[in-house]
């Protein structure tokens, strides 16, 4: 996969287009044909596809390795939940502040990191450190429940889309809208002046700067966009699950789960994070099912499998599944085939 053309719809072949439309149609009607369980699995898939896309803006487009994205999920979740529980402010209004708080946190990390020249693995560690500080910190903020957890009121059978209260199907469509929205936003960004600058910064920062790109500004906007999008995923999570525990929401494990779809699917591609989520979550579910069916009660087996999958992917498909699949099935035009 090379260049923008490889990740853009404009490079997609007729066959690829047909597949894309079929997939979109399938997702649009899924709740009418699928049972409750399948809808919940698909919602999880879509959530990971979405946050994977959000992470991809930083790592895939701009080359900034963040291993602390759980921070933005957690801030989005806690801010929107606190506004709802304590002030009765619904998520549609609350998400603005949620995103703002996450952007401020992202910009603080970015500012410190970029201004002080913290690079590569060191930058990744800085992101982990802030996420961990938040995890431990929220354990002690009793206003939002501390380590005992923070709960949103649940009314059985409530249907109040204005406050994001309702059936699983409602959440399914909200998640689908998030994924589609993030996909088109990512595409528009990549096509824009800013997108070109991000890719240039990712590839060769020195050459990008010599070509007139303000490195600091380009990187800061990437962090801001990524953290805002991720916070929205947090708002969704808060209202979908109705409970928040710092140990889960801010955990390093959560940060890793967020980066997996993009890595498995293909870092820096538009379809990669979505494909990655559609591979990982169902595989995990299938494994849970198999373990239960086999009468095995082994906590850790599923994660062990995830670890193995990660190793296999990174050894055999280091650029991810999507670029390889797209080439094999000729879903995108190859370089030199004309636009």
């Amino acid at each position: 996969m090379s260049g923008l053309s490889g990740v853009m719809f404009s490079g997609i072949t007729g066959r690829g287009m047909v597949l894309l439309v079929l997939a979109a149609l399938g997702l649009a009607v899924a709740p009418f044909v699928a049972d409750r369980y399948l809808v919940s699995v698909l919602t999880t898939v879509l959530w990971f596809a979405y946050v994977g896309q959000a992470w991809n803006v930083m790592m895939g487009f701009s080359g900034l390795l963040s291993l602390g994205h759980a921070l933005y999920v957690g801030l989005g979740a806690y801010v929107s939940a606190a506004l709802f529980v304590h002030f009765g402010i619904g998520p549609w209004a609350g998400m603005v502040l949620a995103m703002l708080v996450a952007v401020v946190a992202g910009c603080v990390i970015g500012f410190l990191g970029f201004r002080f020249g913290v690079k590569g693995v060191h930058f990744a560690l800085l992101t982990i450190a802030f996420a961990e500080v938040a995890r431990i910190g929220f354990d002690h903020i009793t206003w939002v429940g501390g380590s005992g957890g923070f709960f949103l009121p649940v009314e059985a059978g409530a249907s109040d889309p204005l406050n994001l209260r309702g059936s699983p199907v409602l959440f399914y469509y909200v998640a689908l809208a998030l994924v589609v929205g993030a996909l088109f936003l990512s595409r528009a960004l990549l096509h824009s002046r800013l997108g070109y600058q991000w890719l240039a910064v990712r590839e060769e920062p020195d050459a990008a700067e010599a070509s007139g790109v303000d490195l600091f500004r380009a990187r800061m906007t990437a962090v801001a966009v990524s953290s805002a999008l991720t916070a929205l995923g947090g708002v969704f999570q808060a209202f979908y699950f109705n409970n928040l525990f710092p140990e889960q929401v801010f955990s390093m494990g959560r940060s890793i789960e967020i980066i997996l779809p993009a890595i498995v699917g293909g870092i820096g591609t538009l379809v990669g994070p979505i494909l990655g989520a559609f591979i990982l979550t169902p595989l995990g579910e299938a494994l849970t099912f198999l373990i239960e069916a086999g009468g095995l009660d082994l906590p850790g087996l599923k994660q062990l499998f995830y670890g193995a999958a990660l190793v296999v992917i990174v050894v055999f498909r280091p650029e991810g599944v999507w670029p390889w699949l797209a080439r094999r099935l000729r879903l995108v035009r190859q370089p030199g085939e004309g636009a």
Partner: protein
Amino acid sequence: MTALLEVERLSKRFRGLKAVSEVSFTVPEGRMLALIGPNGAGKTTTFNLIAGVFPPDEGRVTLKGRNLTGLKPNQVCAAGIGRTFQIVKPFGQLTVEENVVVGALARERSVETARRQARAVLERLELADQANRPARSLTLPDRKRLEVARALATRPTLLLLDEVLAGLRPTEVDRMVEVLRDLNRREGLTILMIEHVMRAVMALSDRVVVLDHGEKIADGAPAEVVADPRVVESYLGAEALD
């Protein structure tokens, strides 16, 4: 002839080691000036000081009278100086055209317009047929041309070329010399180049500045400079003039 670029008493030390010491020269508008000297003479450091990669310890760089000292590379680019890198730095995963679009976007907000400009620059440097190939797949001569194309796309008033002819075969050198001469003669682009290929230096430049151990040891017309005993001793040797 007015001076486009003025470099005044530029100095830079790295860990106490003097890389560039009180170097001054001017590049008149519309001319081509070559910066030559043995390896480690401070040529690339001088370039980096002009391009804003790091600030000088002392001295001043002005472009058309505007002080550029202390600006960052992107600001220097915006001020009108385009540069290439001695060790080429293409955006490997982007296509050749996308590489040049990034350059064009320095002065252009619309991606569409930038793409048109990039096309024109690629035509000019005979890279148009490679436009959709990933930059990392190019051969070295093409990569060197891509460096020039990307810098040109930023629409500079002064182009800094860091050894764009090194490693090219003689026929490729001639092609590049033609392109550069054309840019200079027809479009009046001012060029400052670091170059080791003396044949090209003699053919292209109006003036030559020689650095040795971070200091300027000669500055004049090409024919004068290569006859200067100090230059011959420190850099050229007898055989280089063949």
